[in-house]
């Protein structure tokens, strides 16, 4: 009884009435002042991050169990699955560090948004199948109470890969592998192609593989926002800053065969705040490198690759920035509503966009023509010289088209074998990778996030075995070459 009156008195009496009259402010402003005072008291109480000297709410916490470098779709997916699979609930503190909260250069939002199972490596097919499942049930996975359901605008129109004489045997093999994993792909002869899609010119095409289900394209921004919203509701902390330094300690250990190995462990991550010289050292147990196209630079900060070339210490993370262009054009006589995501044998691709006869497409340049990745400027001559001729040859209606707009984005290109790097580094034992997907990261993000979370929490892959995607393959030289890269 006494406590209750004291509490009521404390909250309403002297502070409320007293402050208004002391400061001489009007009675009308009392509510505003009351809420300010309540906020201040709340931050002073234990659990709030009040510092008596200055405001530090923009800084990341001083310690976090997992620090995820990079807040794109892969980083957020890892954060989501870490929070979903942790036992007990709320056990792990996760911090996501993203230096650009507008995502202006992130690969996720600049992506064309396609998802397919037509890969040559079986693990890629499995990753993609799970991701499609995730996208289909996205409102069960990413449901946040009292927020509207997500609509990722999935177009289930499928992918159509065309192969010339040379590639026909490889395509047949790939389709066999894909069917074994459960993808719904069918092979079509040029005759069947002409019947189904009369707007295609089948000259030079020996075989085509068409995905009937679980393939198409969707809106990556919606997936990113949905993940972000859900992950924030699960208690993941976000920080707007850049990782500039890792503080680690080394241990000289002996392997079972007597070799000496220098194992490093990262203890602190220095996060530099945007547009400031201030940085915060964050103590951490695990660092996840999901920095996309900039993962190579983050890996160098951790000392990966500092060593004599040819040794495990000297093996760098072979992920680089590669610039790719996407063009949007309008063609009123172009193919209709049934247009799938078409990939020509020359590497040119296009897909329908919306209902107004607009199409998105592009082409990956060869190694010699790689544009300078310093900026995201678009080269329109590239469209004239390299994209339009094969397009017009494949779809005669595209001889008359008008380019409406274009943009450029980065691939986190793995120069070794164009497949992702997943799992811990053998020497820097608490750095985990989730990067290097060279253009198919968005479509595998949910599954890769789950795999990394399983690796972090359990120590091994449980659902999809991605042991062939570990870092050690760069040293041992075992390529997991993916042939169907666009």
């Amino acid at each position, binding site marked *: *009884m006494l406590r*209750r009156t004291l509490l009521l008195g404390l909250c309403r009496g002297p502070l409320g009435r007293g402050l208004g009259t002391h400061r001489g402010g009007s009675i009308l402003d009392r509510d505003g002042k009351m809420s300010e005072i*309540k906020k201040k008291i709340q931050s002073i109480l234990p659990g709030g991050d009040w510092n008596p000297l200055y405001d530090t709410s923009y800084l990341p916490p001083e310690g976090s169990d997992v620090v995820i470098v990079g807040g794109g779709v892969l980083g957020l997916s890892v954060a989501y699955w870490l929070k979903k699979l942790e036992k007990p609930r709320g056990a792990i503190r996760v911090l996501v560090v993203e230096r650009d909260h507008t995502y202006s250069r992130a690969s996720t939002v600049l992506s064309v948004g396609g998802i397919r199972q037509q890969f040559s490596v079986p693990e890629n097919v499995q990753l993609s199948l799970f991701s499609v499942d995730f996208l289909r049930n996205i409102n069960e996975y990413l449901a946040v109470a009292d927020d509207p359901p997500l609509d990722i605008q*999935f177009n*289930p*129109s499928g992918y159509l890969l065309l192969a010339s004489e040379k590639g026909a045997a490889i395509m047949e093999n790939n389709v066999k592998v894909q069917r074994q994993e459960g993808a719904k792909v069918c092979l079509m002869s040029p005759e069947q192609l002409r019947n189904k899609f009369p707007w295609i010119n089948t000259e030079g095409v020996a075989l085509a593989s068409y995905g009937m*289900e679980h393939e198409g394209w969707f809106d990556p921004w919606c997936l990113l926002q949905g993940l972000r919203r859900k992950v924030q509701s699960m208690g993941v902390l976000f920080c707007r800053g850049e990782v500039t330094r890792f503080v680690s300690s080394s241990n000289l250990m002996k392997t079972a065969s007597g070799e000496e190995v220098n194992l490093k462990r990262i203890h602190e991550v220095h996060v530099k705040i945007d547009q400031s010289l201030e940085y915060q050292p964050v103590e951490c147990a695990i660092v996840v490198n999901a920095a996309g196209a900039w993962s190579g630079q983050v890996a160098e900060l951790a000392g990966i690759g500092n060593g004599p070339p040819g040794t495990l210490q000297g093996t760098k993370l072979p992920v680089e920035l590669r610039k790719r262009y996407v063009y949007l054009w309008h063609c009123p006589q172009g193919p209709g*509503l*049934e247009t799938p995501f078409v990939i020509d044998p020359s590497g040119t691709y296009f897909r329908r966009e919306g*209902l107004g006869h607009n199409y998105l497409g592009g082409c990956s340049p060869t190694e010699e023509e790689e544009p300078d990745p310093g900026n995201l400027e678009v080269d329109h001559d590239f469209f004239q010289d390299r994209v339009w001729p094969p397009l017009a040859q494949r779809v005669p209606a595209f001889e008359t088209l008008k380019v409406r707009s274009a943009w450029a984005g980065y691939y986190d290109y793995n120069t070794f074998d164009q497949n992702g790097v997943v799992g811990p580094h053998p020497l820097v034992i608490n750095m985990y990778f989730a990067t290097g997907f060279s253009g198919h990261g968005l479509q595998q993000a949910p599954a890769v996030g789950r795999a990394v979370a399983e690796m972090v929490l359990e120590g091994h892959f449980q659902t999809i075995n991605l042991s062939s995607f570990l870092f050690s393959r760069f040293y041992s030289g075992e390529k997991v070459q993916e042939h169907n890269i666009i």
Partner: protein
Amino acid sequence: MGSQTRTLWGSGRIGSLHLVAPVWNGGTRGIGGLSRVVAPEGNQKKGRSLLQFLADRFYDVEALRDHLLRKQVSKVHQKNRPFNHINQRYGPYVAGAYFILKQGGAVRFQGREWIRPNQRGHFSLDFLKLQAVPVEAVDASGCAINYQGLDSLLALKELQSLWLQRCPHVDDWCLSRLHPLASSLQELSLAGCPRVSERGLACLHHLWNLRRLDISDLPAVSSPGLTRILVEEMLPSCEVLGADWAQGLKLGPEEQPRDTAGPTPA
């Protein structure tokens, strides 16, 4: 009142209310305020915000609300489970028919009359002997059939007519699954399905045998008139019932609807 104070501001172990943090904002409304809020309210909208209010402050209410939502979802899953034992014993046609009848829809076997459940949901099991007779028409209007439930329908290889009017869980993903029925399906009706959009309609081009398609009254389609034209182009031998081509067009200043009956598009 006093005893309530002790339980609420105690360690939180007592009773089932665990406070998330000493929330001074909630507290200033007074302990009496909290007990006032717990009293049941009549209006549903008020009830939802009450649940939200409590769920923001108590872990247990949050867990209860999540549990209620999950139960709703699992109810739909339960309705769509496949009847494998019936499939093994009587064959795919009978299993599919049983599935539809159980959901509240109607089935017509080849050469027979429509079989419908009565108001109570009961139906006669005479069709169990029709193991070799294919199912020709399915009327699943208003049923809670979803992506999983389509498994039972896709086994009906000679299905000619499928009505999915006003089905709340049929969406674009479900439409992409219909391609195994391409050789037999002649009539498809999607009128009134709230989740079907033009993206799902784009994958109906697999159904080359389709003669009648009803895509009227689809609220999720952004431009119904244009979509209908594009679908007609995509399926040239199919009669498409849908919105008028001018629906969704903005009327120009000279075409504003006049009071007298004029020849303006609806």
